[in-house]
């Protein structure tokens, strides 16, 4: 019996799809059977980030409407055979699926996989409700930026209302800006959101490059963000890994992050 995790944020463009793709890929490379579901009906992206857009035959809506079996819609990753993608539909919209149907689907997939990831769309309406319906836990992604934190706070409130425990992933952290006081530190963010911190991802141009190529950045050993995603995956598996102090650039940052 696996675990269903929804990756959500409220705000758009903070890194939900990237995080879903990379954490799934990292877990799969650790030997777990993982399926990543693209919950963004009408605006599918997860397939592009994983580089599987040419292999789509059936999609999530087909499965829900029983036009095909789940196995027929799942796409196995090119490199990692433990990783599967259930792509979304590009022609329908979010009214095509109900929360109950999603819950049923997650229950079914949970039987076969160790982890079921749901990439939640931005917002708090039908798309969000569909995505959280079948979830056991949530990862809330936020950037250290005021509007992102506000939206994440809203989402945390909604998750609490639905009894879904959440942990926080702070994405796109710029170490120089935190140092100069221009960007919120992770403690500022934690102060407001007050949930457990899963991990920190630094701003990294490699992510954009990897995305365009359709390869999860987690496979790139030179990318600090990729390595951060790997650590996050290990934490999800129960390993106690400290959030590092990112000393490779300058020693002065150690005191900012050393506490964690």
């Amino acid at each position, binding site marked *: 019996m696996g675990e269903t995790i929804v990756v959500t944020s409220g705000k758009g463009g903070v890194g939900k799809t990237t995080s879903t793709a990379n954490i799934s890929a990292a877990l799969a490379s650790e030997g777990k059977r993982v399926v990543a579901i693209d919950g963004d009906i009408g605006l599918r992206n997860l397939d592009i980030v994983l580089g599987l857009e040419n292999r789509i035959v059936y999609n999530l809506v087909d499965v829900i409407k029983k036009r095909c079996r789940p196995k027929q819609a799942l796409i196995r990753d090119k490199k990692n055979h433990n990783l599967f993608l259930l792509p979304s539909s590009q022609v329908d919209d979010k009214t095509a699926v109900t929360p109950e149907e999603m819950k049923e689907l997650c229950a079914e997939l949970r039987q076969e996989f160790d982890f079921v990831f749901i990439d939640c769309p931005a917002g708090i309406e039908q798309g969000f409700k569909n995505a959280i319906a079948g979830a056991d836990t949530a990862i809330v992604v936020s950037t250290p930026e005021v509007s992102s934190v506000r939206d994440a706070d809203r989402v945390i*409130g909604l998750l609490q209302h639905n009894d879904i425990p959440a942990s926080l992933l702070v994405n796109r952290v710029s170490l120089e800006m935190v140092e100069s006081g221009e960007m919120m530190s992770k403690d500022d963010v934690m102060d*407001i959101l007050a949930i457990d911190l899963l991990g920190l991802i630094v701003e990294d141009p490699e992510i954009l490059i990897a995305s365009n190529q359709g390869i999860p950045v987690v496979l790139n050993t030179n990318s600090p963000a990729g390595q951060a995603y790997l650590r996050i995956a290990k934490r999800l598996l129960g390993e106690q890994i400290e959030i590092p102090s990112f000393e490779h650039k300058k020693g002065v940052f150690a005191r900012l992050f050393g506490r964690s």
Partner: protein
Amino acid sequence: MNSGKSLVEIKGSGSTLGLHIYDISFFAKVEKELRKLLKRSNSKQFFQGANIILKTAGNDVSSNEFSKLSTILEEEGNLHLIKTEESTESIEGVQSADSPTSSGIPGRPSTFRPPAIQKSTSLASETTAPQIAKENKTTKKSSVKNDPLTKSLLSAIPSEKSPTRKVKKKPKQNPAEPTAQPNLELFGLRDVDALDACLIRQTLHSGQKIYSKSSIVLLGDVNGGAEIVSDNNIIILGTLRGVAHAGLEGNYQAIVFALKMQPTQLRISDVFSRPSTKDHMDQSAESEVAFVEDRDIVIETCQKFRV
């Protein structure tokens, strides 16, 4: 106050018209009731410029209040308020020797009124009376009489699980219980604001809203985008980053307290205010209290406020 009996009445006795006000302590309500009363009875035509005497049943009426009432009577009822008189149908009350205006300094009422008979054994100070009057009107089983002070302030009322949380004050005791409330007068306690408060132990996230008729004590933060609303006082044992609205129904004595005061907006009754950007820069390390003074919201550190 019996529920069902109005706050103001116009009665004739002999050759004079009397404006009877049964409880002047909650003045905003009195004004409202008076306007309603005058509108209802087609007063302008009826009274045709008659004289009327204010009968206050032993309560103080400040000159400010007197002139306000006078204005309302003129505008809405075509009545001339000529003087104040002690009503023969008074409730037991003691005139304080140095009775200043009843609006006084917010939060620090200067007249102390011992319990009035209609209000049972509850303490009728400036600011307690309004709540009791309201309670009696709306909830017949008012728990105010029965709660010992400490118990009521620490009582936890579980909030319903909903994104828009409405926490209504619930009576905690069996109304049939005999009134065994300790008389606070014995301890020399004055200026008791509200004998009832609800305790909520959680953080309000963005988009959540809490309303309570009673004062609210919140153990947690109020995040930006969240709202906390009360008819009385708001005490936040945490950081206020959102909107707090105290004294909703016209209680200008209500205060907002927070360990860290960083609100986007503060409201007490109908007075709104927002922090200037400069204030936001130097945050006070101390807890602060916000209250109304001269139609403005003033924020002072807790220490200063107490003195």
